[in-house]
């Protein structure tokens, strides 16, 4: 079934491939090569949807991405909102409907893949119209590496809306030959369906390639649907063309009212007539071409209404030959119709000198019946990318548009993007730009013959007309729409200027004009013109609104590319991860690491599991996977000196075989990390960091080594993942270790606290361990380090060796409880970059002998010696069962007054303790150490929880349990 408005021949559609689609519930057909818009017009469907605010019927205004109205929702094959029908390529089975300005996001995951690709080139050409192709051909023949991108599925640019001849052949032959040559030239990359949407610094251009959208259901699952090209170009040629401008008049938004040039595109590119009977509203010569082409194609053209006082003589004569009534000095003052325009009102223009401000309407309006009104208000060069690149814009009062002014050194503009209209001028500009760009990159462009084109000098200059003058109706809403998508009218603009706004940026935000999907491509300049008229200023004195990327909407999925799910933020797991999973561990995210949080037995909740794990560590033996601990190998003659500067205590005096705990501060004296330092040799230390700070500490070391102390002979390298690290904790840990390390004397005197030993493990041939006698729980404990490769075997051997003692695997929550019972802070939990070692009660870890170290001088600052600084203390709720929420505030009143309430500090850690048989918390509290024994209050919900302030160490204050 052939569609009613499709011509029997013509257009660049594949008439052999009929495609079925459904729009607004109606089944229709189109051809491969159609857009959804052209297929709808071929079927006589002009009404797409309704407007966002007033619910007025809206249709199709343009043929490309500048279209302000044809928003559709795709339902099949995959739900996708807010696409313009003019940019959706038709495919078989497409199901879509028109949108009232808002769409619906898919409620199912997008199965498509998206990716990104880098390209580097000498010359990037944006646009494959005559200017762009000429530039690309010239640069490519000169040997430059060229990337050419074009938004459309077919090269040709503005030629697609014409029947021009080049070198006395239809333009398609020259274009196709040129494309074939470019494709065959090594070093040239030609990308169709690719929109350059952003220009950034240093020749960086982002472009979105729609690779499989047009295939619909046939899109192969393995191919990325869309790709973001990250192009770095030494030179850029922008041949981005021009957008036709509408003219604003009453009821200018009805379906069937379309830009004149776009109607030509539907005719010549798709073989589609926009209707049966047209009126053309012209302000320049180019709109006559639409009238003549449509008349030639068999459409009835009732009249050309030319706002200029006189019509161009030759064009008028040609119209007359087709029986087209040319009414010079007339304007369209309004339209009639419902879902489609049915008539236009035409009235004589009042002015006779041709200037816009002299035009008014005089005399009675005449009504002309039609179902199509084509409007040509002049052309706006597409300067978006040029402006983004840093080019300045200049207002050209002849064109009524902003044209490129001063270009950045590496950017050139060619074709109608400069304001040129003449085909031969566009070709010549393309050639020039291609030559200059190629020369600038060291290529030597050869002579490239310009294809001959029919000279078509305009007969008569255009008239710049933003709107047909007239008052808004008194008792009805204004229907003179400036931004059709935002339902913003002339009255809205005048309300903005009437409210005192004079900057276009302010008017834009006040009226929302230019903020829809089309970003004001057809409404921006008109708004500027109306504002200038209203304010009585020159448009050239108005700064246009900023052109920001993206030029056209870009799906977030495309920007994300493959950085989704696992690949967005990779999870790091330890060598023993599979064992934890099999054991049913729950995991906690620490940085990128997955750490076992606790290991519940069947039926256990978290509290029960953690109490059981804590009890095992305090009474028997427990094992933890601490492999995520940051580890840095620090080597070199000056390693000791270096660590002396980094840590608050003295590391150079540490003996080989011994371990020391250290605090690290910033120059401001605030604690930034802590950990153990073990001395492996005179010139070698192994430093551990908190899990989340490993990268930061290595960066910190590098920064000082490279920038301040490059004379020190020190090298630092991360060895975090080289080692599997297992704290073996509890009174029976010595027995378990002894069973596994028969060659190691584990006696308290032979292997004392804060010492380390290398030993062979009875696990398999060649399995050795470095065992450190350190404790983060206060219990007798050994930290067993083996190469990550042996991690699983050693872990299982430890579990087996400990079975007789009820060895219990434990996670980070139990680790936190055990250390909190001992008052050991976690950097980043108890601290927040405003906490000094003294605040933590850790002055014992700060050397008094060292001449200097990072942070030392700051400890003497008055601020750091205030007695009311927040200090780390313990809090015991009077009710032993109440667990305070972490982050809760601490106040010194038992009756909360109206805010503001003086806050003394906050709860940093809070747990239920098996050892203490009660709940407890750590907190930082003003003058905390002086308050030990006081009762303070913690607001929780609507009530206040009374708590007793204690020292931070709550368990085994004497340290009796350390040696087992």
């Amino acid at each position: 079934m052939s569609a009613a408005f499709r011509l029997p021949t013509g257009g660049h559609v594949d008439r052999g491939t009929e495609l079925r689609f459904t729009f607004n519930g109606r089944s229709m057909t189109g051809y491969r090569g159609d857009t959804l818009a052209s297929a709808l017009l071929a079927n006589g469907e002009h009404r797409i949807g309704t407007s966002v605010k007033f619910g007025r019927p809206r249709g199709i205004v343009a043929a490309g991405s500048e279209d302000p109205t044809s928003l559709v929702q795709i339902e099949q094959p995959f739900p996708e909102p807010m696409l313009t029908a003019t940019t959706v390529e038709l495919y078989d089975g497409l199901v879509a409907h028109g949108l009232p300005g808002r769409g619906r996001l898919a409620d199912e995951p997008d199965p498509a893949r998206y990716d990104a690709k880098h390209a580097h080139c000498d010359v990037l050409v944006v646009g494959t119209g005559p200017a762009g192709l000429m530039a690309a051909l010239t640069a490519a023949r000169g040997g430059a590496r060229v990337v050419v991108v074009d938004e459309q599925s077919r090269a040709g640019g503005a030629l697609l809306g014409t029947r021009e001849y080049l070198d006395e052949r239809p333009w398609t032959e020259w274009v196709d030959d040129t494309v074939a040559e470019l494709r065959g030239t090594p070093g040239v990359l030609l990308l169709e369906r690719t929109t350059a949407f952003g220009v950034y610094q240093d020749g960086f251009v982002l472009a979105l390639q729609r690779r499989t959208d047009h295939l619909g259901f046939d899109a192969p699952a393995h191919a990325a649907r869309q790709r973001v090209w990250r192009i770095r170009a030494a030179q850029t040629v922008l041949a981005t063309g021009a957008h036709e401008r509408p003219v604003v008049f009453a009821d200018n938004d009805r379906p069937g009212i379309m830009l004149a040039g776009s109607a030509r595109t539907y005719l010549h590119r798709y073989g589609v007539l926009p209707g049966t009977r047209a009126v053309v509203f012209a302000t320049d010569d180019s709109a006559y071409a639409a009238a003549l082409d449509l008349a030639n194609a068999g459409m009835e053209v009732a009249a050309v209404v030319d706002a200029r006082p006189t019509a161009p003589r030759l064009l008028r004569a040609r119209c007359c030959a087709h029986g087209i009534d040319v009414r010079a000095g007339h304007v369209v003052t309004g339209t009639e119709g419902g879902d489609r325009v049915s008539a236009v009102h035409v009235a004589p223009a009042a002015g006779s000198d041709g200037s816009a401000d002299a035009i008014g309407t005089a005399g009675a309006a005449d009504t002309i019946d039609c179902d199509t009104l084509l409007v040509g208000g002049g052309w706006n060069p597409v300067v978006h990318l040029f402006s983004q690149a840093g080019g300045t814009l200049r207002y050209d009062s002849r064109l009524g548009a902003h044209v490129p002014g001063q270009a950045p050194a590496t950017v050139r503009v060619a074709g109608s993007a400069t304001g040129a209209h003449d085909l031969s001028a566009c070709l010549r500009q393309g050639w020039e730009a291609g030559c200059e760009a190629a020369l600038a990159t060291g290529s030597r462009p050869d002579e490239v013959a310009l294809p001959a084109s029919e000279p078509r000098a305009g007969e008569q200059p255009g008239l710049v007309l933003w709107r047909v003058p007239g008052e808004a109706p008194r008792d009805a809403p204004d229907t003179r729409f400036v931004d059709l998508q935002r339902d913003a009218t002339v009255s809205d603009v005048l309300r903005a200027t009437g409210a005192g706004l004079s900057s276009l940026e302010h008017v834009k935000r006040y009226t929302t004009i230019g903020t829809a999907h089309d970003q004001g491509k057809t409404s921006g300049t008109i708004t500027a013109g109306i504002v200038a008229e209203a304010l009585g200023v020159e448009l050239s004195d108005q700064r246009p609104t900023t052109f920001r990327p993206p030029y056209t909407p870009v799906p977030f999925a495309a920007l994300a590319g493959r950085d989704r799910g696992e690949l967005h933020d990779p999870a790091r797991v330890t060598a023993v991860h599979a064992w934890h999973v099999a054991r049913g561990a729950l995991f906690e995210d620490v940085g990128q690491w997955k750490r076992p949080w606790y290991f519940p037995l069947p039926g256990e909740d978290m509290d029960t599991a953690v109490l059981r794990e804590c009890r095992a560590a305090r009474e028997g033996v427990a094992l933890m996977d601490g492999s995520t601990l940051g580890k840095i190998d620090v080597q070199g003659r000056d390693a000791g000196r270096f660590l002396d500067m980094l840590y608050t205590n003295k590391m150079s005096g540490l003996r080989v075989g011994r371990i020391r705990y250290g605090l690290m501060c910033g120059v401001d004296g605030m604690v930034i990390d802590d950990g153990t330092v073990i001395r492996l040799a005179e010139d070698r230390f192994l430093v551990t960091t908190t899990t989340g700070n490993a990268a930061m500490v290595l960066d910190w070391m590098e920064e000082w080594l490279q920038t301040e102390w490059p004379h020190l002979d020190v090298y630092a390298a991360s060895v975090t993942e080289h080692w599997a690290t297992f704290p073996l904790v509890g009174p029976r840990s010595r027995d378990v270790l002894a069973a596994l390390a028969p060659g190691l004397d584990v006696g308290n005197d032979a292997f004392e606290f804060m010492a380390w030993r290398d030993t062979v493990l009875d696990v398999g041939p060649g399995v050795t361990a470095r065992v450190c006698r350190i404790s983060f729980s206060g219990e007798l404990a050994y930290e067993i380090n083996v190469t990550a490769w042996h991690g699983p075997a050693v872990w299982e051997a430890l579990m087996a060796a400990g079975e007789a003692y009820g060895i219990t695997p434990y996670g980070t929550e139990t680790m936190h409880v055990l250390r909190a019972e001992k008052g050991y802070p976690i950097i980043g939990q108890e601290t927040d970059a405003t906490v000094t070692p003294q605040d933590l009660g850790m002055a014992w870890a700060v050397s008094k002998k060292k001449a200097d170290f990072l942070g030392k001088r700051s400890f003497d600052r008055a601020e750091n010696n205030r007695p009311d600084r927040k200090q780390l203390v313990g809090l015991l709720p009077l009710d032993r069962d109440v667990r305070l929420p972490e982050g809760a505030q601490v106040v010194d009143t038992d009756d909360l007054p109206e805010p503001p309430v003086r806050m003394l500090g906050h709860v940093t850690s809070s747990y239920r303790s098996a050892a203490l048989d009660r709940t407890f918390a750590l907190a930082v509290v003003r003058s905390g150490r002086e308050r030990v024994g006081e009762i303070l209050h913690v607001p929780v919900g609507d009530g206040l929880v009374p708590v007793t302030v204690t020292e931070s160490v709550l368990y085994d204050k004497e340290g009796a349990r350390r040696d087992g």
Partner: protein
Amino acid sequence: MQLIPCPWCGPREEAEFHYGGQAHVAYPEDPGALTDQEWARFVFFRDNPCGPFAERWSHSAGCRRWFNAVRDTRTYELLSVYRVGEPRPDASERDEVVS
């Protein structure tokens, strides 16, 4: 995405770099000899010029080397880059780099 010319690797995208604040602010030789005010000036105060500014940068996702750069804070243009320990290029040398 600006290109930053790492003096070790050549031009790389800015996302590979980490900013390190004002350059040529030496760690005081003897912090203990400074008044609180002098020390606070070193710890907390940095210049914020409108125009060329000598800064520290780290090629953190590349060679991991620190280097210095003179950058125009108005245009983001890097007027020169130089290795740690090398003197800040004076104005005339900078002009050469620019041209």
